């Protein structure tokens, strides 16, 4: 065999090897790989949605979506997955119902719930991108198995490690995070999402309502949100009845005091 023949043979062998390696290691696995990748992305979507829910939704819909009486409905109840669409007369899928509601909000209170849902989708002036709205829907829909299975979710708020001698400010910081204040007001010093941001609240509170000290004003704003509605919300003047008026019932006196003390540190 001469030099030229050797090279041609090597070339053909390499081509055949490539073709067989491709068929054996890529093409053969492809039909199984595609659905597996799809399932992975669906799972990651639930993970992303869980983080978004914690950051934005627990303030009204409660930790783990159990709902807050008088504020916003439960999202993990059997009714939500079985009869909700008929109740409201919605013809689309549950996913599109959730995404539509998250995107465009719910401008009308439904009688038993005080809060009107804000518009969360970017296209409607809210903070969430379309993929985030979709992730949120994936997370909410993932409750179906346990909800329809009839086992109500037991809320387990994240245990917050607070020493027994924690100062009121420390308690208040934890309450701000656990109650989901940031869901509407954002992180202090950042940007408000639905309600005004609370960075600098201690300074503003002192002069907001004549006759009320900063401490009294903040306390009143938490337990009676409609007593004085400030004009500067992220999307125009703040609307009354948007903030839940139930915190006097849901927070303990120590927690309420802590929250006030914490907010007073935000100068």
């Amino acid at each position, binding site marked *: 065999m001469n030099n030229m023949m050797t090279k041609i043979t090597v070339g053909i062998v390499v081509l055949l090897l490539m073709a067989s390696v491709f068929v054996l290691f*890529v093409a053969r696995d492809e039909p199984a790989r595609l659905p597996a990748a799809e399932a992975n*992305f669906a799972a990651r979507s639930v993970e992303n949605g869980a983080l978004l829910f914690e950051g934005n939704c627990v303030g009204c819909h409660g930790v783990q979506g159990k709902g807050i009486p008088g504020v916003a409905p439960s999202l993990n109840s059997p009714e939500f997955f079985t009869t909700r669409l008929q109740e409201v007369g919605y013809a689309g899928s549950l996913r599109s119902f959730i995404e539509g509601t998250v995107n465009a909000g719910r401008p009308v209170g439904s009688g038993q719930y005080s809060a009107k849902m804000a518009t969360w989708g970017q296209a409607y002036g809210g903070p969430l991108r379309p993929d985030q709205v979709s992730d949120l829907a994936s997370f909410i829909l993932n409750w179906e198995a346990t909800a329809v299975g009839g086992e109500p979710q037991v809320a387990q708020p994240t245990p917050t490690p607070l020493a027994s001698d924690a100062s009121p400010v420390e308690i208040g910081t934890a309450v701000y995070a656990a109650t989901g204040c940031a869901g509407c007001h954002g992180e202090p010093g950042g940007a408000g999402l639905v309600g005004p941001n609370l960075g600098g609240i201690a300074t503003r509170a002192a002069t907001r309502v004549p006759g009320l000290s900063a401490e009294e004003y903040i306390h009143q704003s938490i337990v009676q949100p409609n007593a004085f509605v400030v004009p500067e919300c992220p999307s125009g003047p703040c609307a009354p009845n948007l903030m839940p008026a139930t915190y006097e019932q849901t927070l303990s006196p120590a927690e309420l005091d802590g929250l006030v003390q914490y907010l007073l540190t935000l100068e």
Partner: protein
Amino acid sequence: MGVINNVTQEIRKEGLFHWMLRQLDVLITRLTTGLNWNDLRSMARGDEPRRPNPRLTVHSESFFFHIKPSYYHQSVTKIGHTFRLGLLSTYFFLIELVTGIFLMIYYAPTPERAYGDMLNIISGVPFGQFMRDIHRLGAEAMVIVVFLHMVRTYLTGSYKKPRQFTWLTGVILLLATLFLSFSGYLLPWDQLAYWAVTIGGSMIDKAPPPVVGKTAQLILLGAPAIGAAGLLRFYLLHVLFVPLIVIFVFFIHYYKVVRVGISLPSSQEEIGQDTAKRVPADKRRYYLPDVFTDEMVFLGLITFILLALIIFNVYPGAPLEHHANPNKTPLHTEAPWYFLWIQGLLKLGDPTIMGVIVPGIVFGLLALIPYIDFNPSRKAKDRPVAIAAWMFAMAVLVVLTWMGTPYFLVESPPAEEVVQIMMPEEKDGPVRQTDWDLLTVGEWDTTADNSAASFEMQKLMVLMNDLIHEEHVKVVERHEAKIKDLRSVRNPTPAQQEELAKLQATDPGLPNGSGKIIVEEWQEGLKKVTMRVFWTPEGSSEQTFEKTFYIHDNSNYDGR
């Protein structure tokens, strides 16, 4: 009627079988633009061509072969002289073109669609991930090959007369290759893309004077920050404009290569000699079939290596991180590896000087090398300065690249670093690698007895404990080094004295550090994992860093 009569007569005379064979041979001759079946066989056997040489006809008749010279000097066709790096660069460009068009079919360059399209390419398009892997590996390989091509040309002194302009076009091609690779980075619209390009975009912004930088950035991104307009522009640059430049400049480059010939080894050719036209007959090596066969076998082997790297997971594959989020800066943003040296430069000083002026001078000098190097010899032993300069440049490049990585001069809070290692924002990390079922629900503490947890969970707690200790030691060492440096200053300024006092007063790192991992059952197939790091600096209360993640049974990050 005459034609049919003629054909009928021919068939009668030759017999149908032989007539058909002859027609087949005519067809082969047409397809090969001049070679019949016997010519092909004689080429495969390695025989001498018949006279007149039909293999030369191919070079004048075929479009694809007319751009190739019909023969080379035998000294330049040896693999060890050029390593065929120019051919390889062109080949990678073709691979990028083909795989790129495949990916374009399934991709729309808008922020609303881009990331979803990537998910679809991976999970809905047959061979989609494979095509991404090849496209990405091909791009990175092309950067390496183009760079090596330049190094080879430099070391053999081949840029000298008459090949100066060829070198200049080569530098343009190098820049275009780098920009092609970089512009492709943005298209998946994930965190990796968004922040790598944000760094790049902010460098353009720093081009002096400010009005030029601002305008250039505005033209490139279409807005002060990367968004829909920037994505569309990068896309068009990536798929249309820069490839056109590459094709255009490539033809100039290659025309020059053919016109003046590939330089012979420096021992055989003096500067200024034009070897392409005066190759003695006994030194000629013909393109058909010798060089052509070599090239095809070479490309076949390279393709096979690429394929093997991807299929056997030596190459980790094209990554896809979370959706681009302008509000969330990743803990460590890293430029693509071929730009790490610029990131290293940026850590050294003013972004205008280090990010724009210095790289500008580097590439400017690179382009002008043939015009400023007056050394008349191409032999390495006559070029000590040029060779030393090259070695120095390579060493600087390596050091700067290392300095561009997060290992150099990036100080993130140690507690954050611990959590980032355990559970990175992207990819898998130890917690996600642990079997989902073995993440035992409960509250686990590095200072407590975790024997109720699964063995895997206990291992995670041990790892966390080790990491807290390691990060602590790292920060304390850095802190002490800084104090030592400041103390050794002879006449410290008030600012330095103040800094020293401040450093001495702080208790750095994670003193008395401990960690907690809280695992909660959250939903069907979903667990909530809260990681907390506690530490107590002297004279201060306990500090906490906390981060929450959700882990789904089926998310399988698998290193991506």
